[in-house]
């Protein structure tokens, strides 16, 4: 098929127009107009090529991965002596302080009354490294609930 035949065929095909959409669908489409106040979605854009050629990218990715693995292996294999010495606590104090205590009563589904004894504690741990002058203090609140049965006679 030569170029003139091709152009004639194109012209013939263009004379056949696509079917008009059904009216109900067109009405539905018009009603589906996106909200003008909504923020636009992120545009579909390609990543910038940064001027790198594909063959370079093909080598760059595995090379970067290998360098990362090598770096991790080298870092792990460093002698332990070079690492900063760990803290050595020469004094450890553990304490607990009662903040509040109260009792409350509830009923089981069977109707049996149960008393709960509720206490609020503050646990405290203090580590001291006198050689380095470091004091680490940790305070953790803790609630203790103990069910206590009513005594029956």
């Amino acid at each position, binding site marked *: 098929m030569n170029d003139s035949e091709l152009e004639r065929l194109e012209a013939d095909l263009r004379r056949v127009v696509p079917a008009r959409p059904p009216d109900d669908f067109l009405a539905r489409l018009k009603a589906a*107009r996106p909200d003008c106040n909504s923020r636009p979605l992120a545009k579909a854009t390609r990543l910038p090529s940064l001027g790198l050629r594909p063959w370079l990218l093909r080598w760059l990715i595995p090379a970067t991965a290998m360098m990362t693995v090598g770096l991790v292996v080298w870092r792990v294999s460093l002698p332990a002596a070079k690492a900063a010495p760990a803290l050595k606590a020469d004094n450890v104090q553990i304490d607990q302080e009662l903040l509040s205590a109260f009792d409350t009563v509830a009923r089981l589904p069977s109707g049996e009354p149960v008393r709960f004894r509720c206490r609020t504690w503050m646990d405290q741990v203090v580590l001291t490294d006198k050689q380095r002058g470091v004091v680490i203090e940790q305070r953790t609140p803790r609630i203790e609930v103990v069910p206590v049965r009513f005594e029956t006679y």
Partner: protein
Amino acid sequence: MNSGWQHETTAPTDWEQWLGHHTPALLLFARQQARCEADAQDLLQEAVVESWQRQGHDAPPPLGLVYATIRRRAIDLARSADRRTGREAAANLDTPQCWFDSEVENRERSRLIQEAMQNLPEIYRGVVTLKIWGGLTFSEIAEVLDIPANTAASRYRYGLVELRKMSREVFA
């Protein structure tokens, strides 16, 4: 290959006017991508709304972007539709679709061209549709179908040759 979509500058920016102008060709493409008329309409609606939202309402979305969104959503739909029951799929396939304007004087011609288009291999059909009725350039078609522009151009030519062989009585 073109680096981005060509923005439409001459078409009306109004939503309804834009729909009135482009919906027939978009629906034609959607019908070729979908298994049934209902799916084609859903695909088109979702793609148009998504494209307009992406564009941010300052201007209508590039047509290439809308066609590409239809195709992408059709692929997703086809994957999920594989899980449908055979009965539902068979019922959908029986639904008649009219791809082209079927005025009385053109009815037979439209039917023959539709038949030829339906028998055209898919790799040619998409390119021919986007070029002839979508009005896209080969660069834009390449973006929509994710193929090189040269491939789009050669498929278009092969597609026209095949189409002419199949509908010789129409284009005699």
